[in-house]
């Protein structure tokens, strides 16, 4: 293992995060606060409890996941797309590093950033609603797993994209709708049964459900299934990354 290379890439990416602190951290926090004001205070006050918790409290895990998902993808896809775009990728490709090391460096930094962000949003939420976390370690496990999985997914998008439009396309057209329809703002059980079945095809449902369970022990699907689906998606992303480096797809051609 070339640990120094992993460290170099990781620190390089984290330096980018600190340099762009305002847009990296502040803007997601502001937009999440807006969700709380609109959904939690304004609309939420007219909604009765969901599964035994107040609506404002209910949406917290979903909102954190919403940010972690989108930020993981955005960070990781940009992190690898940008060197491709400006050409500095030549150095990474010519260095004595394995693809595992490249991935750990880039994906690790992107995931770190979105985990920090998730925790900040959680802290912000605590200012608006009473928060209690029944299973903090499970909460962290789901947070880390999700951040890593979607950073990997973002990494794949960043390698696949050959223009800024494509970089935005998947997050905008697929991930955001899936997240909104994945039970961030409602319980899947509130839906009519037909819609409920369709919703269960959405992988984000399992992430949010598991994450919410670690807070309140309320879940749309069983925790084991949530965990299994998350790890399954992680495995799919890892396989894709392995294939990318094995074939040199969009990197060494």
């Amino acid at each position: 293992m070339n640990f120094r290379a992993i460290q170099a890439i990781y620190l390089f990416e984290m330096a980018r995060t600190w340099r762009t602190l305002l847009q990296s951290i502040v803007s997601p926090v502001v937009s999440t606060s807006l969700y709380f004001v609109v959904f939690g205070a304004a609309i939420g006050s007219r909604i009765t409890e969901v599964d035994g918790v107040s609506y404002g409290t209910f949406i917290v895990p979903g909102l954190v996941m919403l940010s972690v998902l989108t930020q993981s993808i955005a960070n990781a896809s940009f992190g690898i797309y940008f060197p491709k775009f400006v050409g500095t990728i030549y150095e990474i490709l010519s260095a004595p590093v394995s693809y595992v090391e490249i991935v750990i460096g880039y994906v690790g930094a992107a995931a770190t950033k979105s985990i920090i962000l998730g925790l900040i949003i959680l802290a912000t939420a605590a200012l608006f609603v009473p928060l209690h976390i029944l299973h903090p370690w499970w909460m962290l496990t789901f947070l880390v797993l999700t951040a890593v999985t979607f950073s990997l997914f973002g990494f794949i998008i960043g390698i696949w994209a050959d223009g800024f439009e494509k970089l935005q396309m998947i997050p905008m057209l697929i991930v955001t709708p899936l997240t909104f329809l994945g039970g961030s703002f409602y319980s899947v059980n509130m839906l009519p049964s037909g819609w409920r079945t369709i919703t269960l095809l959405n992988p984000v449902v399992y992430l949010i459900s598991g994450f919410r369970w670690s807070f309140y022990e309320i879940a749309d699907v069983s925790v084991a299934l949530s965990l299994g689906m998350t790890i399954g998606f992680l495995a799919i992303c890892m396989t894709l990354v392995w294939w990318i480096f094995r074939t040199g797809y969009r990197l060494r051609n």
Partner: protein
Amino acid sequence: MLASPPIISVSNLSKTYGSGFKALNGINLDIRRGEIFALLGPNGAGKTTLISIICGIANLSEGSVSVGGHDINKDYRAARSLIGLVPQELHTDSFETVWATVSFSRGLFGKPKNPAHIEKVLKDLSLWDKKDSKIITLSGGMKRRVMIAKALSHEPQILFLDEPTAGVDVELRKGMWDVVRGLQASGVTIILTTHYIQEAEEMADRIGVINKGEIILVEDKAGLMQKLGKKHLKLYLQGKVDAIPASLAAYDLELSDDGRAVIYNYDTKGERTGITSLLSDLRDAGIRISDLDTTQSSLEDIFVSLVRAP
């Protein structure tokens, strides 16, 4: 002297792109340890593709390459850690400082921190006073040197310079070549591509010409310079001559098609060019001259004739 094994050995290397374009076709090339090798070729000849494959940026289609005895695929870590690459395009970060980006390169190549080495590299390249500047604020020539500093940060044994002096002013270019000579003196092997024939003449120990994905010539500079030493003196005549007078048969003369000029080929490296005696013999033969000019066959001419050959 016993020949040491080549530091880079390319055998039967071919590269076909996904589009079906064959960029390299059966390349065989050995680079000797410690030499400066200049690779010349027109645009699209495959210079950059060849360098990219040796350095690990592009996959090869057929053949094999070994660097320092290590296969670039099977033993890529050992092979790549010997190489520093300065690509042709100015690919730099923007918001990092010079110090940070050069230190990053060293870490990427798995070398422990060594501020003293990086300080030396930056000083050698006259970048020391810019070490805390963001790269985006630097001029093109400075960015080029930052890229060289990155390549040297991990103390490579082989340095690839792809068009290193494009867009670099004369003063800087000299400084850069001083650095390259210093590197060679310390045992680094240097492979460069350039469009400036003078540079190849001045710097290289050997010269290779690549065209349409094939190596068409590899020769010691001395051998090439012999061909380059030829000069042509064209004498424009006041009148027309039908044939070169017998009294001038001793000179290597050609008569132009219209009979209004004679061309004298001579060797500038020779002890005597024979120009003085030719001019007096011409006068004695009653031939009057209205004008003259001289041309030298350059590496460029040789190069063009090689590349144009079917």
